């Protein structure tokens, strides 16, 4: 069994209630931090832990914290990004639903470290029932004296607000989230200035993912060094992986970073292998936006070594042969999955979710979707493939926020690794548009 940090007590009955959570050692990190530590020393521990942003970007959390501007007399804010909407990702949903107090405890510790007295948890609006769970947990924590004025006599005040979104993937982008939290359209902001300088209400702000914040109680209880000792290289600690698709056991798993992809897919502890009678064709390893990889490349690096579940190993080989850990949305496809249809589906998603502010994303995502729709429905031509590659290239890197990249990568990578399949769709439109038709040409299934 791998090390469990976030899900250690997930199976304890009633862990969603304050009493049970407290009995399992909950809120000791708040006591330790507020009674025995300074905000700076909390930041120091998180830095030492080397925990990287779990929302997808993988930016070191401690470093992000240390960028926070601290002008006199200006409030600072911590905002938790719980707008989990990246297709294939459902770990934050799971964590907040089952063990809400972990996030609340993390919010208290983190807010203390950053000197924030009002912190927000921005939850996607579809998860209204989770919002109610969190609000109940907050009320319990407040009743127990861990929130409100002068927490445990430390002189530190904190109020937590749970904010619902309204249905917009783009609000997972931190500046779009801040706009949304200010009651506006979720249009990402131009950067600079970054939120660390001008964020919520133009005040210095840190935005962190649910899972990232939820690591802080353990880090405070056990020390940053202990956290850094888990994992591999610069991929410290554990990571929640949302496993979906054609596997025997879809679900949320906490892994120690560094287990092999092969073990993760086939071991009973995790995905439990590909569903009976089928073979692995491809994996989207970090949420819909990261490059799709064929079976051989997800299991092994280009040099033949085993690929590991870590930031570095998953991105080994760049986009030519690698991908990204991203949000940990691990979507597994067997040979019945049609890559063209899936790419069109993802493309439709980004088209639907583009905020429409900047021209490459607004126009390019719709264009790609329409071309992919044509190919999938038997009306493509071979030059459409090169057109898609070029349109994706012209979006990538040229937009205000990373949604443009997120829309371009799945298209570029699908064509890079499954070009045959696209050509088959174009050359055999009648065959390809039969219900359930899938390319069965030469490809390495595992």
């Amino acid at each position, binding site marked *: 069994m791998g090390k469990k940090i976030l899900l250690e007590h997930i199976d304890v009955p009633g862990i969603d209630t304050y009493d049970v959570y407290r009995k399992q050692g909950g809120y000791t990190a708040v006591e330790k931090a507020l009674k025995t530590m300074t905000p700076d020393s909390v930041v120091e521990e998180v830095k030492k832990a080397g925990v990287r942003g779990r929302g997808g970007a993988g930016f070191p959390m401690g470093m992000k914290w240390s960028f926070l501007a601290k002008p006199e007399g200006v409030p600072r804010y911590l905002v938790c990004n719980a707008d989990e909407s990246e297709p294939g990702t459902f770990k934050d949903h799971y964590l907040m639903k089952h063990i809400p107090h972990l996030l609340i405890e993390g919010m208290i510790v983190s807010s203390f470290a950053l000197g924030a007295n009002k912190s927000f948890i921005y939850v996607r609006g579809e998860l209204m029932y989770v919002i109610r769970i969190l609000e109940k947990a907050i009320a319990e924590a407040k009743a127990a004296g861990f929130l409100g004025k002068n927490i445990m006599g430390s002189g530190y005040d904190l109020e937590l607000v749970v904010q619902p979104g309204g249905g917009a993937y783009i609000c997972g982008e931190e500046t779009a989230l801040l706009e949304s939290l200010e009651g506006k359209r979720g249009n990402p902001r131009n950067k600079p200035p970054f939120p660390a300088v001008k964020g919520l209400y133009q005040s210095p702000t840190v935005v962190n993912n649910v899972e990232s914040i939820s690591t802080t109680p353990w880090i405070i209880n056990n020390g940053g060094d202990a956290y850094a000792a888990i994992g591999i290289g610069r991929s410290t600690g554990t990571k929640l992986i949302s496993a979906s698709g054609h596997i025997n056991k879809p679900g949320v798993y906490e892994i120690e970073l560094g287990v092999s992809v092969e073990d993760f897919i086939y071991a009973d502890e995790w995905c439990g292998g590909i569903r009976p009678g089928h073979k692995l064709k491809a994996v989207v390893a970090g949420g819909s936006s990261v490059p799709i990889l064929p079976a051989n490349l997800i299991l092994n690096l280009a040099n033949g070594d085993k690929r590991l579940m870590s930031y570095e190993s998953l991105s080994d080989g760049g986009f030519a042969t690698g991908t990204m850990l991203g949000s940990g949305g691990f979507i597994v496809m067997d040979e019945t999955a049609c890559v063209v249809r899936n790419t069109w589906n993802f493309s439709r998603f980004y088209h639907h979710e583009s905020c429409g502010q*900047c021209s490459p994303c607004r126009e390019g995502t719709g264009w790609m979707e329409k071309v992919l729709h044509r190919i999938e429905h038997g009306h493509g031509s071979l030059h459409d493939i090169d057109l898609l590659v070029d349109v994706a290239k012209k*979006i990538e890197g040229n937009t205000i926020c990373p949604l443009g990249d997120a829309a371009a990568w799945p298209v570029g990578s699908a064509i890079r690794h499954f070009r045959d399949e696209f050509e088959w769709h174009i050359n055999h439109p009648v065959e390809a548009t039969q219900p359930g038709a899938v390319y069965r040409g030469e490809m390495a299934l595992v």
Partner: protein
Amino acid sequence: MEDNKPQLVKVTVDGIEVEVEPGTTILQAARKIGPEVAPPAMCYYQPLKGSGGKCRACLVKVAAGSAKDPRPMPKLVASCITPVQDGMVVENTTSPQVLEARKGVVEFLLINHPLDCPVCDQAGECDLQNFAFEHGAAKTRYEEERRTFDKHDLGPYIQLHMTRCILCYRCVFTADQITNKRVHGVMNRGDHAEISTYIEKAIDNDFSGNVIDVCPVGALTDKTYRFKNRVWFSRPVDAHRDCPTCSGKVTLWYRGEEVIRVTARKNEWNEVNEFICNTCRFETKKTSDWVIEGPTKIARSSVITANKYRADTIKPDFVSRLAAANYKPIDDTRDTSQLSIQQLPPERFASSN
């Protein structure tokens, strides 16, 4: 420290060095050098706070971030919102990567644009036309259906052609910053986003007409001028009047002896610095209402300046006679009795320096 003056920073754009105040954007630094190196801007509008960053037309390559940290920036940056650093080296039209990206931006802006330039009032003074001409590819690769929108009526003065809109948000900023109440905005999102009042409503306040001047394309045009003219047939003349509401400084657009349109004055970057009121724009179209200052100075070559203001041009006699014989006032409902060529100043070169 010598005095309070901020130390100027040095920036190089396409090999030309310029000194600017700290905090200046790359685009403004490039404009200081001159139009040859200034990146195009479809959404950025200097007088409007918060504008810019959206169209991506002004993307440039930062080959060196600063003297202190000369590493290049990893991505192309929007020059209109990126502040310069001392020692920054910027590549605009000298970078093939930038030209390629801009070609992409033109293409993106055009795929859903109706290309109805032959009947568009903006043709001839359209930023998108100019941008496409300078940076676009000659043919389109777009084979899909173009986007359309339901029609919205914005009242008696402003005509909205949503299909032409490139969502620069300039008109939204204008309504926010120039008028006392904004009733239009951007509805929906993605490529379905549209300028609208949501509920049928006229845009009606003293300064609403300025949204026409800031629109880079023909999405917002002057209803009182609609289909009356091609811009290159008209002659811009600067004029002013004593207006209780605005500065009263305008450009009158003449066709023959008739004022067919009034706009605010635009600088060489096509930006309005002094916004004008609706009375000046829509209701004051007699030459006698205005004090004529002289031909509008148009610095950059334009169809608008072509064949105009040449005092010494001697027209063949038959041309003058033909013109006189065929001259008809454009708007029959308007009183043209007071129109007189004598009130116009002697014509001269518009761009004489």
